[in-house]
């Protein structure tokens, strides 16, 4: 059988659609821009500062903690899973690393390696329980969250240990005008984007989240795709913990749950257009979702909105966004 190769030029529409599906979150980016300029106008009109370097930098830094763990959350959600244990893993990381480092610069490496190992272990256990014991991801990671919480509060009840000054470069240092932490977030986002859209693992992750059985019957090691996503997600929670402890100078058991990194990260992911059922979405949307949440916070703070009302407004924004996605998909007929 003679095989012909007919290279066909792609038409514009295909190019465009491939770009959108690759970068993900087309609509959220537009919403983000609107929100950004809307916030600028709103805050400026009420006499506040929005478009200053300091304010923008502070928004970006606030986005880093949530952004890193939300990138990890994106992976598990794309795989059709979920991770509710990230908030307490952030706390465990913060406390454990600051206790190990204990103000001694020579122990920075040890501290980082130990918490990364703990994170990998937590992710591995989450992944194994979900895939091999077939425990629903919601329950498995909620259980893990309780275990971590128990272990932590049994051993610590306040700020413990301290991180050395050299380590605080992570939280406060800059290269030129750019904070280290923001560059780190951007790099992580870039690496994960590449992983999702250009590597075999990324293709398999979308496939497993889209249809587990199809992926398995196509020869994908579906269980391990999910397990690896969980390990990666836990590692991002550890990175968030390492970042937070560098800002706070010492770890406390409440830093994770206070930041609500579990639910906030899920909110950012779905705000970014990733389907909670898995298989559709991407990291670009998640980062836009994180920034959107940060902009909202910033507006609320500058306008002096009551704390409880803030939550109400966040809730409204989240539900409205998801409803818009649902309606759009229905219109598109898919």
């Amino acid at each position, binding site marked *: *059988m003679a*095989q*012909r*190769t*007919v*290279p*066909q030029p*792609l038409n514009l529409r*295909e190019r465009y*659609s*491939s770009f959108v*599906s690759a970068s993900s979150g087309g609509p959220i980016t537009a919403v983000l821009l609107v929100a950004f300029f809307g916030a600028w106008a709103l805050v400026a009109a009420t006499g506040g500062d929005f478009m200053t370097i300091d304010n923008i930098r502070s928004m970006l830094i606030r986005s880093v903690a949530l952004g890193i763990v939300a990138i990890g959350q994106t992976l598990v959600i794309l795989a059709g899973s979920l991770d509710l244990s990230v908030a307490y893993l952030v706390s465990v990381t913060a406390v454990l690393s600051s206790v190990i480092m204990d103000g001694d610069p020579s122990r920075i490496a040890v501290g980082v390696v130990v918490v990364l190992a703990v994170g990998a272990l937590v992710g591995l256990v989450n992944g194994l329980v979900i895939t091999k014991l077939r425990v629903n991801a919601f329950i498995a990671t909620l259980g893990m969250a309780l275990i971590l919480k128990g272990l932590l509060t049994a051993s610590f009840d306040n700020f413990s240990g301290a991180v050395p000054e050299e380590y605080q470069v992570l939280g406060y240092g800059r290269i030129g005008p750019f904070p280290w932490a923001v560059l780190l977030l951007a790099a992580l986002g870039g690496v994960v984007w590449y992983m999702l859209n*250009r*590597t*075999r*693992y*990324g*293709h*398999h992750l*979308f*496939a497993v989240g*889209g*249809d587990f*059985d*199809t*992926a*398995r*019957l*196509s*020869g*994908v090691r579906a269980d391990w795709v999910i397990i690896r996503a969980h390990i990666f997600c836990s590692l991002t929670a550890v990175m968030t913990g390492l970042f937070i402890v560098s800002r706070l100078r010492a770890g406390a058991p409440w830093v994770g749950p206070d930041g609500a990194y579990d639910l906030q990260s899920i909110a950012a992911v779905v705000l970014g257009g990733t389907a909670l059922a898995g*298989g*559709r979405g991407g990291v670009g949307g998640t980062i836009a979702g994180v920034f959107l949440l940060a902009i909202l916070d910033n507006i609320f703070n500058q306008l002096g909105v009551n704390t409880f009302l803030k939550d109400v407004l966040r809730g409204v924004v989240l539900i409205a966004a998801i409803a818009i996605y649902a309606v759009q998909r229905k219109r598109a007929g*898919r």
Partner: protein
Amino acid sequence: MSDQTPRAEPLLELRGISKSFFGVQVLREVDLDLHSGEVHAVVGENGAGKSTLMKIVAGAYRPGEGETSIDGEAVAFHSVREAQQRGIGIIFQEFTLLPERTVAQNIFLGREPSQGLRVDRRAMENKTRELLSSLGVEGLSPRAVVGTLSVAQQQIVEIAKALSLDPRILVMDEPTAALSPHEVDSLFDRVRILQQRGIGVLYISHRLKEVFSIADRITVLKDGRRVDTVASSDVTTGDLVRMMVGRELDHYFPDRAAPGAMGDVKLRVTNGGAGMLHEVNLEVRAGEIVGLAGLQGSGRTELARSLFGAVPFERGTVEVDGSLTKVRSPRDAMSLHMGFLTEDRKSEGLVLPHSVRNNALLALRALRPSRRRAVNSAGPVSVADLSKRVDVRAASLEQEVRYLSGGNQQKVVLAKWLATRPDVLIFDEPTRGIDVGAKAGIHELMRELANRGVAVLMISSELPEVIGMSDRIVVMRGGTVAGELPAGSSEQDILLLAATDAEQEAS
């Protein structure tokens, strides 16, 4: 082709394959062999073990006993991947494509060509184009998102996916279940291309007519045993049916309605339109079975959904029992004494993890109180009587319907609608994927309902069914009614009406 079949070394040989699940013996000592360039059909009623046998061949299940060998060498697969590596490709009954991903991503899932960590997208798309053109397919872009393709195009992607492994053995499980007759023909052309390349094809189907037109040899399974393997030129459909069910079905279809037996018009649509539907004119009388034929995509299912209010008509008028009315939702339709057996019974007709009893009562319990009182006033509804009437074979009324065979599931769906004492029943593909015995049972029930004065509208892709059952045949094309034919018209008449200008689909 059949005269050259038995040659020295079979490509694939199964010996004494047995398999049981939870103590239920599904396969008993089945033998099968397949030669290069041969199409070997496996037929049998639902539950005869065809799909289980194919899954064993494909490495998805491991046999309890027995031996598999390829080129005379014994093999034992522990996974689908291992079977793939030994040259076995499979196209499963349910499509296994990811709707959100592109054609190329689907075809190369799990085996993406890569350079280091990076997927070589260009190579992947070029290989996809080669595969598609080797199947004689033009105009299907590797970057098209699968969810936007037609069913026939998706099937092509499915075949290309199996072929991307360069298999020597291809297993096709009910590949034509969702295709129109004309699409089946183009599928068979592709199967013949594979045959010429020396690929051995194991072909499973319920449709005996297709089996005759494509297979060189046929193996009949019954209750997990192999009844016989025959050359397709040596047997008739009647022979096969006898082997499959162990008896000859003397009546394929029940008698039609007597000419004077039909009542008034129960349901009439005038110039109906919604979505792709336009200028639809249709009427169904009490006591009549109207067959609705047409190619895939001609608007048959859309019409049914609009009649039942799932996608309400936007234009035109609907009359029920002679009075103008609007059907804005399935709930409205049920209030007007209508019932709808959907094409996809598993996702739209049944709640799979619920019992036979709860499924049978689902529609009745959802009726508006006034209508429910009216139904009950004609005597209490008994699920036991209903399930006896439709002849559901279940361990008990409390058994979950997901454990029932396709035929019995369909009977439960029918019981669900009978519980509401409907005057109009719409059947969409009532016997798709159902074995011969259950099929005859459902046909008889449909006729019995019509004889009691129910107006029946039946959509079917199986022309023999349309011809055998209908008192009148309405043919759809391009979203409207193309014409009407009397009872007993030939397949050719129907196809001529259905396909005159519909050649653009599925090439």
